[in-house]
């Protein structure tokens, strides 16, 4: 069975799970306060950021710090639970399919869910920016290319985090520990981005990247900027190790 058809099967499994609805609702809720408090975007002279940039960045920061990582923890639960309930995993393991491939196919679906949520956020951004442009009589809509660049940055920087969450949900059989650890690990990311060793903490990457972008756009504000040298190798290392261990451990509890 080719890897592509495996991904298709995994995507089919979650078709009726309503996860897309949950992910979409979260993005709608994300932008509501931004629409209601749109006039606050004009009072950012101290930071030196233009209202339209501020509108985008504040929304994206709200997404990157809690909503996006937490939704991804929920998605990992979904991917694992569909398999474990009614012992579906036993059937999958009895097929002549490489378990590592199976694990990676699920991870690709997780990446697709992450991409979906980020795209929904971007879509909702354009909708809410359109609304705010009407109510505030000021053009809030930014160049689509720029918005997609920022969104893409969040997605790429989130891959190590997703690999870590995937590792948690594969290796820890007790659901409350994998969920609890995943959710609890998000909370300290606010502290971690202010330290020098932020690059060892994958959960802080998306938030760090977007905060760095904020510093770039706000002329009077200096935030820590991305330094690729310690970051990229460490991030790649974390991703590969997490995926490697999860591929090894996938289905191990059932194969005993």
């Amino acid at each position, binding site marked *: 069975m080719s890897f592509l058809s495996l991904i298709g099967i995994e995507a089919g499994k979650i078709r009726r799970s309503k*996860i897309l609805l949950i*992910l979409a609702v979260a993005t709608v809720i994300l932008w509501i306060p931004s629409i209601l408090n749109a006039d606050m975007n004009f009072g950012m002279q101290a930071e030196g950021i233009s209202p339209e940039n501020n509108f985008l960045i504040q929304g994206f920061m709200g997404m990157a710090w809690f909503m996006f990582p937490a939704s991804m923890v929920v998605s990992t639960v979904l991917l694992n639970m569909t398999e474990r309930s009614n012992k579906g995993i036993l059937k999958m393991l009895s097929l002549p399919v490489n378990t590592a491939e199976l694990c990676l196919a699920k991870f690709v679906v997780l990446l697709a869910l992450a991409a979906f949520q980020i795209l929904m956020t971007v879509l909702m951004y354009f909708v809410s920016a359109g609304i705010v442009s009407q109510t505030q009589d000021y053009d809030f809509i930014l160049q689509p290319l720029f918005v997609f660049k920022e969104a893409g940055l969040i997605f790429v920087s989130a891959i190590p985090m997703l690999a870590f969450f995937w590792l948690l949900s594969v290796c820890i059989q007790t659901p409350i520990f994998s969920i609890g650890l995943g959710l609890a690990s998000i909370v300290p990311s606010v502290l971690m981005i202010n330290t020098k060793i932020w690059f060892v903490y994958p959960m802080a990457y998306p938030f760090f990247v977007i905060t760095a972008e904020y510093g770039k756009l706000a002329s009077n504000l200096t935030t820590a900027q991305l330094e690729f040298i310690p970051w990229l190798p460490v991030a790649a290392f974390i991703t590969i190790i997490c995926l490697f261990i999860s591929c090894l451990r996938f289905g191990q509890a059932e194969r005993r």
Partner: protein
Amino acid sequence: MSFSLECKKVKRTGFTPAFLCGGFLAAIVPVLNMAVRSENYLGLHASSVQILMDANWQMMAMLNILLTVAGACLMYHTEYADNAIQRMCTLPLKESKLFFGKVTLMALMCIVILVIEGASIALCSYHWFGLSREVWVEVMKNFGYALLLMLPTAFGSLFIASACKNMWVSLGIGVVCVFTATMLPTKNFILSLFPFALPFQIFAGTAESIVRNFMIAAVVEIFIIGIAEVLFLKGRRLFE
């Protein structure tokens, strides 16, 4: 009977260790914060407990809420997995009793984690600010208030968990609710009444009238969610 049954059900699910770990994790927050940057807090003119709560409670409350949501999902997951709930429904037992048994256990675990956190706050104020007799009373008042405001969250998350058969749906809705709560301004009274936003409130340094309003609101919310749950279960039974 229902309560002891609930204790037995969560025995091998890692529920108790998870709450203990979560409690200790939240308790470490003020200790770490004081250890790393105590100079930011020592010069402030306020009671030690108030300083510590202002500096750390947002994060601690967030951990508590996440723990409650995850715990609630797990509690009902044990029922829905392999259709155990159908057996529970055939017993000569009201389905709502199941809910209140779970609420009792959850409230107990909330007390446990709040005691751990309260001890940590007291320890911090003893170590960095010097202990006075009033600290204990103040810590107890603060955490009693925190417990009361946490109960609506526990009720709410268990309500969601009981309504959804799939764990990820209840967890997803819970996470969305927590996310909404983080975006609501804590100073706005009406918006803070959202059950998942209540635990972010701090007792120390708040006017007495506001504290009273929040306490009344929390009790009212508990009653409303309790009644809603009973009605919901009755309604669902009719259509099953």
